[in-house]
């Protein structure tokens, strides 16, 4: 029962995020200037002065493989609640800054929430598209399916049927055929490996069932991890089964 309410609240939270209006509060020139000075202190060292992801420390994390610090000038973002190819919502960028990205980017929750919004405003100045394009939010119908043996079983079948294993491996350990063949590259042409799906602490886009559902709908733009929106729309239940299955791989529900 507890799990049901947990899932329900999470789904409710997801819906809230998805329906919130972009750029709720007015951004002033002052905010952007403040954002710039925060960026220079906290982010420049990795993301670079011009936002190209070529800061002095950007090379070391995975010198010859992905991920490199994000290049903000091309408008390509991984962690969104918007459809594949769309820009992220401000809330998405805010969430990334707050939570950090496991493995590669520390959480900056030490900045006040005002400071984080200001740096969001500044990051958006690196790419002109933020002025023109309106991000298109993914649409989810129905309620979450709570994790149960039946759901996990169906998720397991979907995982094989939808060919997730070709990259992630039959057991989800990141050792699928395509991955082992070294064929996976990101948009900067750096070799990239699929996540080990048995270890959710390393999932960058969040590790709750609703986070995984979001990942499946949005895809991780700029990486081989595709968006499954076209397959899953109208079959939202399947997305929840997959999420429940993935979480069961680590013994979580």
């Amino acid at each position, binding site marked *: 029962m507890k799990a049901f309410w947990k899932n329900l609240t999470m789904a409710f939270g997801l819906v809230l995020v998805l329906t919130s209006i972009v750029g709720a509060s007015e951004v002033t020139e002052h905010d952007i200037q403040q954002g710039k000075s925060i960026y220079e202190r906290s982010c420049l060292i990795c993301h670079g002065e011009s936002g190209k992801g070529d800061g002095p420390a950007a090379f070391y*994390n995975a010198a010859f493989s992905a991920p490199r610090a994000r290049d903000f000038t091309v408008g390509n973002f991984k962690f969104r609640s918007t459809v594949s190819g769309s820009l992220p919502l401000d809330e998405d960028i805010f969430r990334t800054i707050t939570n950090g990205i*496991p493995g590669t980017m520390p*959480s900056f929750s*030490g900045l006040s929430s005002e400071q984080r919004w200001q740096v969001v405003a500044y990051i958006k100045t690196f790419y002109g598209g933020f002025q023109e394009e309106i991000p298109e939010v993914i649409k989810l119908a129905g309620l979450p399916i709570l994790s149960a043996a039946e759901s996990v079983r169906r998720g397991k079948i979907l995982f094989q049927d939808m060919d997730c294993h070709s990259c992630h491996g039959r057991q989800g350990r990141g050792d699928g055929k395509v991955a082992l063949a070294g064929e996976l590259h990101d948009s900067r042409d750096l070799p990239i490996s699929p996540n080990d799906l048995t270890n959710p602490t390393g999932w960058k886009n969040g590790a709750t069932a609703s986070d995984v559902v979001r990942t499946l709908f949005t895809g991780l733009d700029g990486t081989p991890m595709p968006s499954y929106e076209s397959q899953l729309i109208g079959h939202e239940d399947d997305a929840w089964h997959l999420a429940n299955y993935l979480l069961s791989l680590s013994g979580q529900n």
Partner: protein
Amino acid sequence: MTNVERFFHPSLKTVLALGFVLFVTSFPLRVPEAEALPAFARKYQVNCNVCHTRPPRLNPFGEQFLENGYQMPGTEDGGIVAKLKYGDVTLDDVSNYFAVLFGVDGVTNVNLKREVPGSEDLTELGTPAIVRLFTTGTVTENVGFFVDMTSIFSRSSDVEIGRAFITLNNLGGMDWAHLRVGRLDPSAYFSMARGRPHWVPVGPKFAPPFGSFATPTVTQWSLFQSAYASKFYGLFDRSGAFIMPFDSTLYNSPEEVGIDVHGRPFGDWFLYQVGVLNGGNERAGDSNNSKDWYVMTRFDYTQSAYLSVNLSGFGYFGNHNAKVLGGADVSRSRYGVGARVRYKWLDVYGAYTIDRVTDLPTGMEAIFDSTATGVTVEAHALVADRVLIGTRFDHMDAGGLLATRKSATFVGLQAKYYLRSNMWFTIRDDFNVRDSEGGRSAARNLRNRFNVSIDLVF
């Protein structure tokens, strides 16, 4: 007793043992990534290489984290990355605050030309091991600490407390002034920091006579950075212990008791540092009742294109911080410049220092060279995600008693293979550039040293 041995404190063995047990038992409770990660990496859930070029050398981001007192740059996030709490101390805290470095020298082959004339070259095999327990972190916003306990089994199984200090950060405003108080390493923010070397320090070997104002026989030259070495033959510390010409001292001491302030009040391009130390290599007390002080400035270019450049210069002004034979006080000072360039996979850094001894007793000038210099240049290249190769050049123009002083020049080559970001194999070879000669000169007898070792940090 040697300088190294003097620092060992047997009573701390229990501290290390306890910490180790606590740490090891807590470890299986929380391993966030596929890799086992040291304290900060665990706390922030990031890979070691976020802060390190490759451990243990810091990259520019790691340097910013260090400068801000173990807080994310531009933040005062000390203590706020809180997990589930059981009162004020959590089990997570144990792994978030402790890290252990375990290093084993697999094979060491030392090629010595013995000082006793007529003896053959000699090959020695040894397997020393090092265990270092660090406990470090932030207790609350802008307040942090660092304690480093080391045990080198080959020399003694006792535990040495190295650095142990408290940090108070962002005094007067963000990045204005960061304070360290305690036993600290002054050169932590210099272009070529004393700590976290890619070259595992190789200590010297000694033979008697030991004791007050005795000069022990150095049977093997050590391979520390020459720029940071004491460089003088015939100096003693205030307790009468011989100061090895190659021991890191003054601004580049591994630890001295004092207070140190640094900051970047004008932005990222300029760093200042000033400090006051008891000086004189004294573990406790301040027998000369006078202080040594230093000032360092550093200029940084860190913008984009995977490039960072910095230049720094310092002056260290000693005040009755050493003695000469006979017990008279002298003052040692050091002036130095350092530079570092990092571009993509290349990392080159070095320092040049000039040391001076002043206040020599009358009559000593004729037999004592009061100026010495040292230079150390290191270069590393990350040739693959897991492979780091490097080379190092060390030259010391020694000073001190003209009768015994000997200059030294060494070159080192090294390759490291990182099995994981927190575990690596090292192959290293150092060789003497100068010809060997007769006589009792440690600077010349060590011809070549080859070593294979494994390090694990967790």
